[in-house]
């Protein structure tokens, strides 16, 4: 009982079959009906609508919407943003989890809370703070003007805001798991003479890999899909500073419904494919 978020071990997804402990059939089926109904209503229906709208004018229109220059530029920018932010936050997540779960020190609860903070800060505020910092009227505004450094309304600003938004995800996945694991295995390796690095790679990583992978996936999904914060710092220049989520909004406002939902479908597909891939990987691993 315990760790609050941790990866799912699929071998245990199989229902326990103790006869006396099973729910009555009608309970089981009605609960399944409620769950499936709820998921269908709140997840399948929106997903279906995205796909339906994206293909509403046929596959050809869908492809041509995706192969527009502005769409391609938006996809590139989104990939670039994820490529920079995900590795940085992954390294941070591992380091923070190591420090927090392997050592005792004062202010640990505060540190954990501060790491979680970006999760619950309103996206509007997340964008606004970077404007206050790097905007022309912000703290570093004059210096940046004088040296012709552009952060806000340019790619660095988008990356910074995304870093902030996706900051906690890897750490959040790892901390509870590593806390629960304890450090006996690592201590054993160390006392047998393994170096710190070797222990980390040979003992820790294999134990946390699924949580790490899941954290990276979440971080990546958020990095690619963030709208609110990025919208504040982007400047919305077509083909230059529009990420895919912003491009979707712009297209929708241009009355280009197919273009908008085609963009959205890529983000949705990306999320679902990675999640299915992850489930499949876990499955293979567990059945080996």
């Amino acid at each position, binding site marked *: 009982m315990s760790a609050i978020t941790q990866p799912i071990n699929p071998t245990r997804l199989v229902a326990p079959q103790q006869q006396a402990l099973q729910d009555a059939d009608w309970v089981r089926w009605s609960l399944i009906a*409620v769950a499936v109904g709820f998921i269908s209503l709140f997840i399948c229906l929106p997903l279906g609508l995205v796909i339906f709208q994206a293909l509403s004018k046929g596959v050809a229109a869908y492809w041509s919407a995706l192969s527009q220059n502005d769409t391609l530029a938006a996809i590139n920018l989104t990939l670039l943003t994820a490529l920079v932010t995900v590795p940085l936050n992954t390294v941070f997540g591992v*380091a923070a989890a190591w420090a927090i779960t392997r050592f005792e020190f004062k202010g640990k609860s505060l540190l954990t809370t501060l790491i979680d903070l970006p999760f619950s800060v309103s996206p509007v505020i997340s964008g606004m*703070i970077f404007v206050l910092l790097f905007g022309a009227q912000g703290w570093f505004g004059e210096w940046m003007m004088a040296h012709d450094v552009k952060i806000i309304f340019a790619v660095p600003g988008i990356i910074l805001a995304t870093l902030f938004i996706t900051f906690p995800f890897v750490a959040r996945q790892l901390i509870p798991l590593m806390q629960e694991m304890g450090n006996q295995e690592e201590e054993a390796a160390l006392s047998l003479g393994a170096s710190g690095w070797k222990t980390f790679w040979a003992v820790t990583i294999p134990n946390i890999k699924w949580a790490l992978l899941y954290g990276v996936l979440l971080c990546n999904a958020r990095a690619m899909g963030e709208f609110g914060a990025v919208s504040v710092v982007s400047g919305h220049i077509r083909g230059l500073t529009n990420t895919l989520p912003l491009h979707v909004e712009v297209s929708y406002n241009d009355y280009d419904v197919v273009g908008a939902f085609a963009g959205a479908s890529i983000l949705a597909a*990306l999320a679902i494919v990675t999640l299915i891939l992850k*489930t499949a990987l876990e499955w293979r691993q567990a059945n080996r």
Partner: protein
Amino acid sequence: MSQSSIMPGFRPTIGFTLIYLSLVVLIPLSTLVFKSFELSWDDYLHIITSKRVLDSFRVSFSTALLAAFIAGFFGFIVAWVLVRYSFFGKRFFHALIDFPFALPTAVAGIVLATIFQPSGFLGKFLIDTFGLQVAFKPLGIVMALIFISIPFVVRTVEPVLLEFEPALEEAASSLGATRLQVFGKIIFPNVFPALLTGFALAFARGVGEYGSVIFIAGNIPYVSEIVPLLIVAKLEQYDYRGATAIALTMLVISFVLLLMINLLQYWVRKRSGQI
């Protein structure tokens, strides 16, 4: 867990953690604090206690609370079903749970507004059957927040249900407890802290949500205007101080909420004998 003298890497990892945390999170957030120093205490109170701001807080908090309740209730059932039962297509549903997390919030807002608009697929049904308009009413905000809350509740409750020892249930049932008693006295109390955490996460996230809400809320002052929208409106009027005052208040509330969640988790671990 105790301090281990042979564990290596405390200094580099905590050092990196603190520096990175400061650069990416703390320094940017501190701008809110410093900017708010431009305001006197009276100005601050005046902004925060104006009727419009208070009402937007009321709207944001009440809708986020309701959404977190609904998401918590159904999320628990979904997690239960996904862990305990097997049925056709389970793996597919399982993979879909994170979908709201990956979909850009603006798209979520557009899609939900399309579904719940008075002439939409569900909106028409709800109006015709119950006379209930969802989109462009506070209820629309609740729907958007339920959507974005689902992954948090399910993903928080699921592992705890998985870890749950069947032995406890077996013991109880062999002592003659009914299924309902086993659930109410054994299972639920053990899952409850995780459910509460999921609920709190959903609530904390819902209070600040912007992108998905503005498309479906109606945005009428005093009725369906959320706090983040008010911050945006202040910014658009070049009123940085007003925006900062509201933003700082929200930040403090988020911080307190998260601190409470973490203390709750600490309490749970302590109670279950992990510390």
